[in-house]
């Protein structure tokens, strides 16, 4: 009795504004408002922006970021970075193409070897992180540089040029293309396969994060790794699995690039890792981990898609796109810090 009173005096009994507080503390809130704002701006500035065909274009641009933003946001909630994510996509495409070309004439073999490769690289990142205790910034910066070099070096050594040879006449190319690079047109709206992959990853990623034991561990290892370890959470294994997730995303996107363009430029992908991180941060992920949302990362990717295409529709100077992105990132990071403080300190 008296104990309850004590807690009530300290403010524990005041549950009235709980619903409002919970809404304000949602990590996606900022990105939702920003997405609506960006949409409104371009809808007003560019008439073609509202056409169905434009929606398809925007969704496609968003999906090529979103597919990676899902695993990257999970990784960031788990408290780590992956700077190798951008070039890993190119590695996935190159591996698939070259294995198919050099060893077999069936594209599916290359596709599967590529999956094994990206997962192995993800595992390597996680293993190095767990073993060396180095910050993931350094570990994955190393992987990033190594992959950048290897992409160019191996491609040149094998094909003699910086791009791969065409594989469009191989067995399995059409079925792979259907899976990774097809498109469906419904009443003027063209939806590319990447959009389905994105939605699928989004649903699975969000479900895993919010509704599974593993998701609980993701929050915990990012929020306080020592506390997580103390109650028996396998910290290193959890983080390694998150890097495997990034490997999987890179594989999907890499196969898309390969089967929609047939050849792959080995120098591509550099810088994209930062765009994935920006999408995750705009979506509410804290740089320091332990807080964020997969749905938010999708909104971040959508903002990216709307802005990159909207600028063209509005016939603004596209040079300013990066400026816009940077300003957006700073605003989002400030908002996240504010939301975090709210969540931590509560109403008192």
């Amino acid at each position: 009795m008296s104990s309850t009173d004590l807690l009530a005096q300290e403010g524990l009994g005041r549950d009235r504004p709980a619903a409002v507080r919970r809404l304000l503390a949602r990590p996606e809130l900022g990105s939702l408002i920003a997405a609506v704002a960006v949409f409104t701006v371009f809808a007003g500035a560019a008439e073609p922006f509202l056409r169905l065909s434009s929606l398809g274009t925007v969704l496609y641009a968003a999906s090529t970021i979103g597919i990676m933003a899902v695993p990257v946001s999970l990784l960031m909630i788990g408290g780590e970075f992956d700077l190798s994510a951008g070039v890993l996509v190119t590695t996935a495409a190159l591996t698939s193409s070259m294995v198919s070309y050099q060893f077999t004439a069936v594209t599916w073999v290359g596709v599967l070897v590529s999956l094994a490769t990206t997962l192995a690289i993800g595992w390597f990142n996680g293993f190095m992180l767990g073993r060396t205790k180095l910050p993931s910034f350094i570990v994955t910066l190393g992987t990033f540089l190594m992959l950048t070099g290897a992409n160019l070096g191996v491609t040149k050594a094998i094909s003699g040029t910086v791009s791969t040879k065409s594989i469009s006449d191989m067995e399995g190319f059409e079925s792979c293309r259907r899976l990774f690079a097809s498109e469906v047109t419904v009443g003027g709206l063209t939806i590319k396969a990447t959009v389905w992959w994105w939605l699928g990853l989004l649903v699975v990623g969000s479900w895993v994060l919010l509704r599974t034991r593993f998701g609980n561990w993701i929050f915990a290892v990012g929020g306080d790794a020592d506390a997580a370890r103390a109650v028996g959470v396998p910290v290193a294994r959890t983080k390694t699995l998150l890097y495997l997730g990034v490997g999987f995303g890179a594989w999907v996107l890499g196969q898309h690039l390969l089967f929609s363009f047939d050849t792959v430029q080995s120098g591509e992908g550099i810088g994209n890792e930062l765009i994935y991180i920006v999408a995750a941060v705009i979506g509410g992920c804290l740089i320091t981990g332990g807080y964020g949302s997969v749905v938010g990362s999708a909104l971040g990717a959508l903002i990216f898609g709307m802005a990159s295409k909207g600028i063209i529709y509005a016939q603004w100077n596209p040079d300013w796109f990066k400026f816009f992105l940077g300003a957006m990132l700073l605003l989002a990071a400030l908002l996240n810090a504010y939301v975090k403080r709210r969540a931590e300190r509560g109403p008192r």
Partner: protein
Amino acid sequence: MNTDAATNTDGMGTELLSLDGVGKSYGTVLALQDVSLTLRAGEISCVLGDNGAGKSTLIKIISGLHRHDEGSYTVAGEEVRFDSPRQALERGIATVYQDLAVVPLMPVWRNFFLGSEQGTRRWGGLRLDAEGMRATTREALARMGIDLHDVDRPIGTLSGGQRQCVAIARAVHFGAKVLILDEPTAALGVKQSGVVLKYVTAARDAGLGVVLITHNPHHAYLVGDHFTLLRRGRMAGSHPRAEIGLEQLTTEMAGGSDLAELSHELARPPVPDSREERPQP
């Protein structure tokens, strides 16, 4: 695992663990020497000592973080030598550290079940039973006398004392027989300390044995059944409650004769009589 706290009460008074002549050295530094302690179910045993007296070393041995070099450590009648906290936990020895094992930004219920999450029957246990876990958290807290409706709020929004209480309730819920509390009141105000001590006694009433580490004799004397004093790694005293008063405990804790000497040194010289022109030489 999820032993109901009430079922533990049958074994009141049975010996849970005992240390006999336990010692530990780090390299050439003797951190702990010849310490003996016995803990029974439904008993609060307080370990008091100043900074560097060996309290942390003692907890680390009991909770399995360090192995002892000398003497014997017996849990439920069986001599043990733990290699990891996990082994201690498996034998029902749970430790609530000063810098609590909670993740501040996670909701209370997620923290409560962290590492021991419940799955639903469907999906092969893959899907979290979020509603069940929320309800269980509420119940387990209520059983300890903590009334917290909104278990969805980040645990970081609770005060230090409230977080201690949740951590204690968690240990009790997951079937701990022995609860080791490392300075639970050190960073807390008077009122909060009172709340925490209340839950310490609630854990005792649920049939747990509690080892309470503190340097505050007042807090210890409020709840303790037995008092072990440590000084410079050695036992400086071991008294059941019946044999010692708060006054004596405070004096012993503060260093006994050392304190008497200190108070003599610090005492103000007698105030000179105002009528005299100058103090006496």
